[in-house]
Structure formats: C-alpha cells, structure tokens
C-alpha cells in the first residue's frame, strides 16, 4: 500500500512536470482493496487489474520497474512504448494487460480459467477488478453470467468508488446496492468496507478461498471514495464535499496506519522508515528509467502479427528510395 501510494505520488509529480506522455491514473484511496486482491493470489493465478490497482499489481508481483517504464515510455518496459500507463501487463505470467473498454477483461479471465480446466490445473483462481461504472457495461453482464454458467473460479472485485469519471452512482445504476446484482447470476456477493484494510483482507481472502475450493464465481463489492481525479488531468471538482467528510471519504492508508499505531504493531518511526524505503525504491527506478532509451520508430518492426510472414507492408513505393 505504501509503495503503491509513493509510486502514484511520484508518477503524479512527473506528470505535472510534463515528463509523462498520455494519462496518469492513480489508485489513491483504493489501495486497501486492491492490495488485498494481489495478496490473496498465488503463482499460477490470473489477475486482471483495472486502472486503480497499482497496489494489487505490486502485491501480485509486478516489478516497480514495469510500472515506471510503462508510464515513462521506456523501450525496455513490458509494453516497449507501444502501450502506456495502466495498460501494462505480462499476460504470459498471469498479469493481463487491460484494454480501455470496461468489462472486457472479465471474460478474458474466464477464458484463462477454462484453459486451466482443459489442462486439468486445479486450485487456481482468476481475479478481475472493476469499478461502479464498469458494472453498467454489457461486457460485465456477459462475463459474470458466463462465469456463473461455467462455474469458474472467478473472483470479481467491484470497487464502488462513487464516481465513474464525473458520473455519480445515482446516474449509473438504480439498485440499492451493487451487491444485489449478484443474485441475478445465481451468486451471492460479499460486501467490504474499502477504507478498512483488515475488512478488505478478510473479505477478499474468503472469496478467493471459496473460489479456490470449487465454490464457483465470487463477487465482492467494496465501498470507498476515489481520493483523486479520474486521471491526473482531472481536478475532481465534482466530488460531493459531504462524501469527503463521511466515513467513506477516509483515506485507507491513514486508517491502516492509525490502526498499526493504536495496536502497537508499529511505531511512527517504523512507518516513516517504510515510507523512506519505498521512496528510495521508486526514486531509484525513476532514475534508472530516465536513462533508458525511448522506442525508435526506425527500429520498430511495425508488424502486428506473430506470423510475420503473413504481414503486409503498406509503404508508398514512390517514397521508398531503396527498392
């Protein structure tokens, strides 16, 4: 959580300094929920994070360098400048690289779980994260229904952070609680307090354990408030000040720190040291990546196919001087 927050803050700073092309999307306020997902997964599981899942990614094992390289467009990153920011992933290692179309990753996780079934790999689960806005898509419905029909070990984690970009939940859905949707798919849903790390850890771990044990798809709905804009280009002026003052507006990181201090599990010095360690790790990664080469359009192979022999080249012969 701390590493994710520090990394997010660094990326936000670099964005404001004009060092990042494209968008920067933060997980501020959502770390407790996200990290709980990453911590509950194991090697061999599949994880489809969404845009605010930096903490879950780190907990799942994504290196800080992957994040920094993708935000800064390094040629050495997993996306090599071909895709940026939160679209990074290593699908061959279980970390899916999200497309921008919400809900679309759920069925991809389902497919991975179907493959596990064909390959007789047991005890593995897949987790997909989505927000309140994403629950309105057709892909969300199709994906959840598909998982239910096939009884796949999918854990669908809904972060109801009260706004989809600027749209409040009252313009997004008409049911009382997103968890009510689960019954329509023949599932039950768990609810979590997204501002409370302990609650998130407990609820997500139980959902993952049930999926792992063959209990079919699990849905978790966590309520929290997004403590940032949709992206760093957005000042989030539309967020209701009353929500910010409500328990929903608590910063999960501050809540977790208070708990650590109150229980005497850590003192202020230990927490400060943790932050400093995270800052050093992030600074080192940024310093490394800033010395790395940008992708070179003249060395790019401009081939979208794995079967290179089947690719067509669309070059204007009139502009080609060497032929």
């Amino acid at each position: 959580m701390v590493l994710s927050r520090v990394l997010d803050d660094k990326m936000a700073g670099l964005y404001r300094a004009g060092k990042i092309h494209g968008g920067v999307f933060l997980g501020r306020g959502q770390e407790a929920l996200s990290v709980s997902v990453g911590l509950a997964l194991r090697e061999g599981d599949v994880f489809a994070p969404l845009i605010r899942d930096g903490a879950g990614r780190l907990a799942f094992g994504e290196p800080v360098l992957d994040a920094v390289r993708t935000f800064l467009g390094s040629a050495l990153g997993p996306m090599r400048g071909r895709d940026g920011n939160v679209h990074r992933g290593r699908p061959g290692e279980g970390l899916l690289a999200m497309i921008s179309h919400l809900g679309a990753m759920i069925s991809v996780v389902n497919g991975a779980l179907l493959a596990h079934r064909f390959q007789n790999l047991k005890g593995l689960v897949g987790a997909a994260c989505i927000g309140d806005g994403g629950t309105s898509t057709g892909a969300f419905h199709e994906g959840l229904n598909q998982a239910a029909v096939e009884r796949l070990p999918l854990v669908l984690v809904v972060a109801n952070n009260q706004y989809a970009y600027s749209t409040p939940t009252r313009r997004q859905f008409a049911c009382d609680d997103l968890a009510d949707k689960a019954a329509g798919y023949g599932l039950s849903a768990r609810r979590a307090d997204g501002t409370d790390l302990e609650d998130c850890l407990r609820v997500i771990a139980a959902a993952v354990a049930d999926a792992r044990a063959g209990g079919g798809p699990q849905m978790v709905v966590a309520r929290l408030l997004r403590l940032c804009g949709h992206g760093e280009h957005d000042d989030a002026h539309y967020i209701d000040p009353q929500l910010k003052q409500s328990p929903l507006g608590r910063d999960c990181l501050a809540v977790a720190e208070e708990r650590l201090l109150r229980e005497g599990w850590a003192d202020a010095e230990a927490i400060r040291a943790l932050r400093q360690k995270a800052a050093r790790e992030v600074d080192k990664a940024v310093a490394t990546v800033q010395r790395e080469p940008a992708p070179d359009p003249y060395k790019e192979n401009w081939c979208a196919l794995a079967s290179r022999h089947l690719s067509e080249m669309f070059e204007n012969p009139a502009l080609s001087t060497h032929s």
Partner: protein
Amino acid sequence: MSITYLEAIREAQAKALADDPRVFIYGQDVGAFGGAFKATKNLAKEFPGRVLDAPISEDAIVGAAIGAAINGMRPIIEMQFADFSTPGFNQIVNQAATLYWRTQVPCPITIRLPSGGTSGAGPFHSQSMESLYAHYPGLIVMTPATVEDAYSMLLEAVAIDDPVIFCEHKRLYYHLKAPALPTEAMPVGKARIHRPGRDLTIVAYSAMLHDALAAAEELAGEGAEIEVVDLRTIKPMDTDTIMASVARTGRLLCVGESFPWGGVTAEVVARVATEGFALLDAPPQRLNAKDTPIPYHPKLWLGHRPTAESVCAAARHLLQM
C-alpha cells in the same frame, strides 16, 4: 463419394480436435445440437467436453477464447451468423487483434463467420464482414471459395499464431461439392488463378468466385477470354498475383458481395491503380452489393448483390472501354 463445403468445415474441425489437444470449440448451439448449420455435427459426442455451448454473449465468447489462447489453448469460435459478430467486435478488434503487438503474447484463435447472403435471409442473417475485419491490424481474414480451401484453410487458421477471421459462405454450404478432401494445399496468403484468360481479369473471393466463373463461361461464348483470380485470403492480400494477371490482360474488374463503400474491391482497385497504373488499358472497375441493408425478398436480394448477369454486364462494359 463427394463432400460438401459444409462437410469440409466439419471435417476440418474434427481433424483439428483429433490432432491437437489444445483445440476446443465454443459457440451457441454447437454442442449436442451440432450448430445452426450442423457444422459441428456429432463433434460433441466424438470429443466429449471439448465442444461447448455458449450463452448468447458474443463479447464474452470471444473474450473467453482470447483468455484461453493466452493460456495455451487453440479455440475455434463459431458465430452463429457473421452478422452476430458485431456484439463481439470490441473483443475481436481491440483485444484479440492488439494482444500480440502490445504484449508479444500470441492470440491463436479462429473465429468462424457463416457469411453472405442466401435467399430470404434478410438484413441480419446475410452480411459479409470481411472488409471490416481486414481493416484492423493484427487479424488474418480468410474467405474460402472452394470445398478444398474451406478444409485446408480452416486447418491453417487453427495452426496460425494470430487471430483468424474465417469467412465461410452459407450459400456454398450445401450445393458446392468436391470429390474428396484435399491432401495438399496452397500456402496461406496466395491467390489462385482459377481460370486463365487474356482479355480481362476478374478478381473475386468467397461465393462471388462462382458468379465470376459463370460470367467468364458466358463471355467465352462471346469470344472473350476472362481470367478469374480467387483471392482466397483477403488479408494478407496477394497483390503480386493480381498484378501479374492485370499485366497479362490490361483490364481489371473486382467483385465483392459486401457493401460498396470502401472494402476489399476498393483495396484491390487502389493497389492496382497505385502500383500497376501503366499495366491498365482501361480504368479499373469494381462491382459490389448496393448501398442499402440487405433485402429479404428473393427478387430484391438478387437485385442487391452482384450476380453472374451483372458481372457479365460489367465485364462487357469494361471490354469495350
């Protein structure tokens, strides 16, 4: 003993399932029912657990195929009709087509699209989607016109490490027959000169090949030797074979069943005009369906799409230019 185009598709899937444990079939009604056109007849029985009925969720069907492919499988998806691939369009063009380029993880999925018009099928069971999919980088688009190609190209599609849009024409399913399944095949991406000639080149693909061949036969009676080129795959497109044919004949007519704005025929004409302008003795021509939705009534439908008669008329006009 003969085999139909549809049986060839069924046999290719049976062989793919038998040869490769990574292959499975997923689509609506493909299981015990055997598919809306019976292209998967008995496969669920012969390959238990590997031919799965899907809910009516084209987006999730394609998404699941992609996830399975990432994890080592080789899924074959049947869309009940090509027209119904539009609810799955996002997954096809944004997820499957971009996956390898973005992540270097291949996406070996085959999406079968029962395509094209048949009498009485109307606006939503008749479409030809090949031009739309060919527009997107990262996809291979096949349009087999013969029984032999339907078989061998479907097997190639499953073997290719990229997403393949396999456009099989419903009008060819039952009446197009071959004596036997092929034992060898042309490479993917090569067009075939189906009928040699020296006066005019007709480039066609899928069911339009047969209208083009009928037109060529008709025109032979009028003394014109028409060369007919079957594109076989429209992406990649075999520009060399097209250009070589136009070099021989000096005249190009490209025929396609899909809508007229842009598309395969426009692409062929553009390539010949830009790279082979000096080879042409007359302006290159194209013939497509009309720019309306596809009509239901057989009389309107025959007036909507190109037919042997309209291909003949277009060719006669071009021969006189």
